[in-house]
């Protein structure tokens, strides 16, 4: 068999994992290998996890998910959607409310791609705060299907972790530099615009303070909390 399901006319409408095919198939003594051995799994949904909504609500920022009435204002306002067509906050909220883990699992690697522009939260007529509900859904997806989430998401987490665990705060300037280096775009740091801003900040001494934020206040206590957190996370994601 060359291509999976190649005998199906409207192939694009059928998802890969619904197509059942065998190299060789014999039914009641008749060899039906070839075109006749393509079967489709039933599309009737039988399995729901109603507790999914409660899991999202328990995360605080997901609290208002119950309010959603599926109007589509969030998706209509979405920035990420034009880059990732499957990123549809309204649809994700629906899947969570229904407890449709099958469909959500398939989209695990899309759910976290919100860019945080907050236009949805500004416009949602029910004040669901979809931007932050998406954050909560992202956490749930990580917990359940962390292995399905693409590695790009890890870009920059090294620098994040180093700063948080090392100083208790994020230094956005050095973080951006680290990210650009990670992406092989360090030249952009030396653009005319960056140099102009850099010189200005050097003259009024902001540059020094920006690059050396130092440790967060109450560091000795904070450090213990962070260490504890790191251990608990490593238990979940070794």
């Amino acid at each position, binding site marked *: 068999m060359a291509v999976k399901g190649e005998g199906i006319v409207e192939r694009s409408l059928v998802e890969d994992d619904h197509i059942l095919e065998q190299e060789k198939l014999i039914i009641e003594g008749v060899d039906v290998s070839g075109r006749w051995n393509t079967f489709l799994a039933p599309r009737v949904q039988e399995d729901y996890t109603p507790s999914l909504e409660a899991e999202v609500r328990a995360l605080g920022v997901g609290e208002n998910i119950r309010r959603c*009435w*599926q*109007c*589509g*204002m969030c*998706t*209509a*306002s*979405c920035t990420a*959607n*034009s880059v990732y*067509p499957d990123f*549809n906050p*309204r*649809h994700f909220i629906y899947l969570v409310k229904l407890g449709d883990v099958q469909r959500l699992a398939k989209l695990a690697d899309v759910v976290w791609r919100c860019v945080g522009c907050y*236009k949805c939260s*500004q*416009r*949602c*007529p*029910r*004040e669901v705060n979809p931007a932050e509900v998406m954050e909560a859904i992202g956490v749930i997806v990580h917990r359940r299907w962390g292995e399905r989430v693409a590695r790009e998401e890890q870009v920059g987490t090294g620098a994040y972790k180093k700063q948080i665990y090392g100083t208790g705060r994020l230094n956005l300037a050095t973080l951006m530099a680290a990210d650009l280096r990670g992406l092989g775009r360090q030249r952009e740091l030396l653009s005319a615009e960056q140099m102009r801003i850099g010189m200005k900040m050097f003259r009024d001494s902001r540059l020094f303070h920006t690059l050396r934020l130092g440790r967060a206040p109450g560091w000795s206590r904070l450090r213990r909390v962070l260490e504890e957190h790191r251990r608990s996370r490593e238990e979940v994601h070794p």
Partner: protein
Amino acid sequence: MSEAVLIIGGGPAGLAAAASLADLGVEAVLVEKEPELGGTPKKYAYSKLVPDLRPAQETLAPLVQRVQGREGLRVLTDARPTAVSGKAGDFKVRLAGPAGEEELSAGAIIVATGFEHFDARRDTKYGYGIYPDVVDIRDMERMLSEPQLKRPSDGQVPQRVGFILCVGSRDRMVGNTYCSRVCCSVCCVQAIEVKEKNPSAEVYIFYMDIRTYGLLENLYWEAQEEHGVLFVKGRVGEILPRDGQLMVKGEDTLLRGPFEVPFDLMVLASGMEPGEGTVQVAELLNLAREPNGFLAPRDSHTAPLEAAVEGVFLAGADLAPKFSDDAVAEGAGAAVRAAAFLRSRAGR
């Protein structure tokens, strides 16, 4: 002790109250703050009316005629109350009108101060007040009263027309969480009118739910079946000008995914709010208001047309969004309640 009833507001509800009191032989004074009687439909020149698509001129005229030249009924336009003292049976009301101030006595008061349209500039994402071809249903009523529908920017006949339902209603962000009740049916009628004037126009209605409640459902069916109006379930997130058209960005929730399509004219179904006149009278008479600002009856089951303040009766769209047939029925009902109230006091 006064035997007269003061009616505040000369819209459908107030006109019906005044005519009913005249029919009952009860003395009454009708005050209207605008120069003309007829209420909001008159003030903004509504076109064809729900439920039977008759021109507003035609249906308002008999309501106005019934209060003209009636014995025992005084009609004052360009006038409004400025102060009220006393109590049921003997209210003292100060009126400011074109002839200056005057004071009159009233045994009972009917409040029929109606509604105002939601100001769509408050919902900034649609650019109402910035882009001339983004209009609201109030503007559209006036535009449809003309023989030809033209778009404001350049006077061209719009070929692609879209309606957005629930603007200023059912939306926490603008502060109105109630349904304005009339807009779904009004948009169906306006869409039909667009098609009647220009059968080749493409007309879309973007909706979350269609609330053509009760017998009004036939308008929804008619728009769809006879005029080919298209209903798209979803929400529009923003409107931006592009190449002389409006680029409309939204999500079609049935297809699951966003769209960006050009339109020539976008109509916002801006809802109903208690107007400034209602707020003013509520303060003068110390009337209770429900959380959205509409007037609250004493008991919505047993006394839906009575205020908690004795001797004050309520009718029309100042109680809640509604169509004018309901407003007219309530005006007549409030007139009966007020007349019965005065009679019971006189008998005492």
